[in-house]
């Protein structure tokens, strides 16, 4: 079974600082990691490979530094990695990104399954996976929480839906986006790291993939981020001070008045 896994390199978000004026994240000194939700896609793919054999190609679109994320995926157990990197791709929205990645997948060729993460923790759209399925005209199952059955021609999966789980039977090749519930991502191994270091990551440019320039980057993106607003905190606390032990009763009266005023008692 040949599997393709698109991943994204995102800023490590445990300690994110925002530039309030520009509305963007301060990226200086921030480590980048594989999008944490893509790790579940990687683990799912690796488990399928361990069971059925085949090859996993991991693919990412981003600056040359995204090679690091791809190599980490190889260290976990993926076989090949491809980086889509070109200045022309800069500023892509989910439409342009899914177009570019889908064309790269076409170029890579023979595959049975594409597995993507649920969404990226930075953009938070969850549209690129389904977008790739649309460009490639593949059957799609989102929010997959379990792979029930796989054979050469078809796949049975369980999707996490609001009411519970939905079981879907679908033909291969297909595209899945997976949720956390599906697996527990493994850590990269030392052997994997060494293999990753020796793995050459080919870089696909717009020219190499023979892409329609109208569909690329900022120019090819029908959506634009115009402004990022910070939510205003509308809840606020009121502190009733006692000013020492003698003020306690007075403070309690104030609190009761406040609760009455808000019709809470």
């Amino acid at each position, binding site marked *: 079974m040949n599997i393709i896994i698109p991943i994204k390199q995102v800023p*490590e978000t*445990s300690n994110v600082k925002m530039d309030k004026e520009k509305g963007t994240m301060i990226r200086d000194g921030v*480590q980048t*990691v594989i999008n*944490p939700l893509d790790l579940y896609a990687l683990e799912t793919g690796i488990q399928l490979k361990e069971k059925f054999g085949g090859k996993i190609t991991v693919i990412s679109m981003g600056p040359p530094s995204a090679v690091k994320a791809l190599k*980490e995926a190889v*260290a976990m157990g993926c076989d090949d990695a491809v980086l889509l990197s070109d200045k022309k791709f800069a500023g892509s929205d989910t439409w342009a990104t899914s177009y570019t990645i889908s064309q790269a997948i076409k170029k890579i060729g023979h595959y049975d399954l594409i597995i993507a993460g649920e969404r990226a923790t930075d953009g938070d759209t969850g549209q690129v996976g389904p977008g790739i399925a649309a460009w490639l005209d593949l059957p799609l199952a989102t929010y997959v929480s379990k792979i029930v059955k796989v054979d050469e021609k078809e796949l049975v999966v369980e999707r996490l839906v609001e009411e519970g789980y939905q079981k879907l039977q679908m033909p291969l090749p297909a595209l899945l986006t997976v949720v956390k519930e599906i697996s*527990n991502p*493994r*850590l*990269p*191994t*030392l*052997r*994997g*790291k*060494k293999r990753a270091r020796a793995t050459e990551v080919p870089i696909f440019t717009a020219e190499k993939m023979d892409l329609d320039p109208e569909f690329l980057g900022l120019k090819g993106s029908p959506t634009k981020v115009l402004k990022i607003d910070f939510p205003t905190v509308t809840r606020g606390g009121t502190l009733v001070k006692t000013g020492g032990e003698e003020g306690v009763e007075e403070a309690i009266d104030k609190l009761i008045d406040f609760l009455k005023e808000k019709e809470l008692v």
Partner: protein
Amino acid sequence: MKYNPVTKEVLDELKSILGEKNVFTDEEKMETYSHDETDVKVYGHMPEVVITPTTAQQIAEVVKLANREIIPITPRGAGSGLSGGAIPVYGGILLSVEKMNKVVELDYANMLFVAESGIITNEVNELVKEKGLFFAGYPMSLETCYLGGNIAENAGGGKAIKYGVTGRHIMGVELVTPTGEIVELGGKLAKDVTGYDLKQLIVGSEGTLGIVTKATVKLTGLPTAKSNLLVLFKTPKEAIDVVPEIMAGGLIPTSIEFMDRLSVQTSCEYLNETLPYQDCGAMLLIEMDGTDQDEVELNAEKIGDKCMDNGAIEVYVADNHTTQERIWSVRRNIAEAFKVASPVQVIEDIVVPISTIPDLIPELEKISIKYDVQVPCYGHAGDGNIHAHLVKNPNSTMEHWHEIEPKALRELYAATDKLGGKISGEHGIGLKRKAYMKELINPAELELMKAIKRAWDPNNIMNPGKIFDMEDM
């Protein structure tokens, strides 16, 4: 030991020295000051009064008063100690340095800082981070503990193999002696052999030789790159045997943490984590740091290779914050996980020569079987400091536990002693271990310690009842 009670007159005098708001006797407020992180039911004791001085001069006056009236003083930092060192066993005055928490000087030209002893250790690190520096001698509890407590206990922690324990970084202290003098010991000098090194005598003296009010502390270049290895071994012996191999290789890790299977399994179950512990008997968590990520990763790889050459089943690599946090949280949550599984336990921190750790493991197994207790074993393998817990079998009675606990501890300490080890590597003797220390220490050495205590604290008012008892005073 006979001490006088804190009378109304003494309270009034304390208030006149310190001001009303820095003296309190309200039971509810004092309760917090009656224990540290040891079991409050076993070791807790209420003070008669709690004071929160703000200057060394105030402390000196209080100490003089205590000598005049023969009232014990127990100094206290953040109360995160694990040996009962800050517990006022004889009541008296509990002196908390919590209000003495200012940075006095950031002297980057000499790579040091001067701060009052009540500062939270981590606050110092936050402050000097922008200059690319840090205080490297901090313990695992850095987010709550105070600098003064670190000095009193000579705290260790997870990074001691490379950076050493607290004492290595303390250049000077301002001390109020047990007789109420204010002295400066050491200072900003990198070298100083002008007489005895009294500053180092204070480090680790558990508040029995005075109250540190200020400290001059060395700063170290902050490492910016890190790589971690989680190495799985079939047996604890194989894991420990690789430690001297690593150390002899010349690449000194920041930490080499050992976790036996029981520790990993309990912590993983507690965290809902899925590290593949099923087939392994023990794990090592090895951290390398430096300033160049590629170089650090390469060095970590060399150590990983050494582990593989010495029988490791698998080596996992964590090069980024997310994966590093994942494996470190397993190590950090072991104690907490056991508390959930069986809340009755004793946490020990014996230390043995590194090469003898494999000989210690079968001894722990013997104790575990003989007394029907779980003995998870984990800790700082790189410096021989092992945290062996004795965890009560949840199905046994408390009476049974009280009966076996001292016996099992004595056997643990005897095994440690036989291997050339000591009963505490970093938590201190305090209240909790003094009976055992007396049994194991050379009497001549103990007498030298007592002679020092007698000379410094003739009335035995400074944190009495800790480390050893002064029966003849």
